[in-house]
């Protein structure tokens, strides 16, 4: 197990776990989907940062830790940018041999995770309506949906530009 000098990897694991579960909790079906991964262990090596994260799944919750017991079912390695492309279902070429993401072990676990996020249908409206009332909640939810779509488009474009730059430099 890697021992870290600074608390930053722990902060990253904590932030990632919080963010992933916060998004998953917006879809009532997510816990059922995540439960199907129960008992499996995913290791993610963040190249360039020298950080290894372990993902476990229990009771519909994703846990991210710096240590884990047992042998990982799947090890995914890549730079943070390459790994982020996994969250983009339209660019689902991360599993191909020339991808910048390396997968060792059971690749179906990575595919299952991708499916969970691609099927995600966040219910922005429910919690917002509870806080701000039905009308304001609905309007805020619409804004968030549009914002999320815009952010996804921007990320997609940025990823494309970045990958084009890399290709240009290589050729």
């Amino acid at each position, binding site marked *: 197990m890697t021992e870290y000098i600074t608390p930053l990897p*722990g902060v990253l694991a904590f932030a990632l776990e919080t963010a992933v*579960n916060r998004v998953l*909790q917006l879809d009532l079906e997510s*816990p059922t989907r995540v439960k199907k991964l129960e008992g499996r262990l995913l290791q993610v090596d963040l190249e360039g940062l020298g950080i290894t994260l372990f993902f476990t799944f229990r*009771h519909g*919750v994703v846990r991210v*830790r710096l240590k884990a017991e047992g042998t990982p079912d799947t090890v995914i390695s890549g730079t943070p940018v390459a790994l982020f492309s996994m969250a983009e279902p339209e660019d689902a070429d991360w599993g191909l041999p020339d991808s910048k993401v390396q997968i060792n072990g059971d690749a179906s676990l990575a595919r299952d995770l991708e499916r969970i996020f691609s099927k995600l249908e966040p219910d922005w409206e*429910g919690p917002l309506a*509870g*806080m701000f009332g039905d009308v304001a909640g609905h309007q805020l939810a619409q804004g968030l949906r549009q914002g999320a779509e815009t952010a996804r488009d921007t990320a997609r474009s940025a990823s494309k530009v970045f990958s084009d730059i890399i290709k240009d430099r290589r050729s």
Partner: protein
Amino acid sequence: MEQTDKKAGTTDTTHFGYQDVAVEDKTRLVRGVFESVADKYDLMNDLMSFGVHRLWKRHFIAISNIHPGQRVLDLAGGTGDIAALMSKRVGSSGSVVLSDINEAMLAVGRQRMEDRGIVGNIEYSLANAEKLPFADGEFDAVTIAFGLRNVTDQPVALREMYRVLKPGGRAMILEFSKVEFESLKKIYDGYSFGILPRLGKLVADDEDSYRYLAESIRKHPGQDELADMMVDAGFSRVTYRNLTGGIVAIHSGHHD
């Protein structure tokens, strides 16, 4: 709860904070704590959570999916914070039963509800969560907020919650839980055991009760352990979500 061999002449024990006490004594000891803090209960919660307990409770109800017309039960309802929020949700066509084992807490809760004009769809029940005086399948939802850790036999209470739920009904538990993020854990422990009891002495002249509260939080099952207990009690679709880094967690399960 620790099971011991009665044939060997020993008794069943359970924890009361960090102390091991006889099972039959815990209910009385917990009652003593809450009778001692009843009139300052809100102040206590504010001290323990920097006032964030109000946000946790609002979030708890916001995600409860409780609808108008439903009949819901709030166990260990104390001063009625949760029942007041649920009363608005179920509306005049629904009903909320505010229940607590402690007469002093229930009296404070009843008075506060009446002072806030929350009447009509509220009932009150002096009840032990381990032996609920309700029929099978009577409620659409059962909640317990910051109460389960004070229950002597938690598996029995969970089974009772399951029993009184209608098929399709949902139980929700808001409770202090385990912080696993090391940096936050150090700060949290320092506050709970170093500062909180002193504040308890200063504000309520009751250091022991506040120390018990901090200890009882640490003795309470962690997120996965409580979820396992819910599964054992019969609940399906059990899951949880952490709030504020796991200082508290909301567990939910269904009676399918």
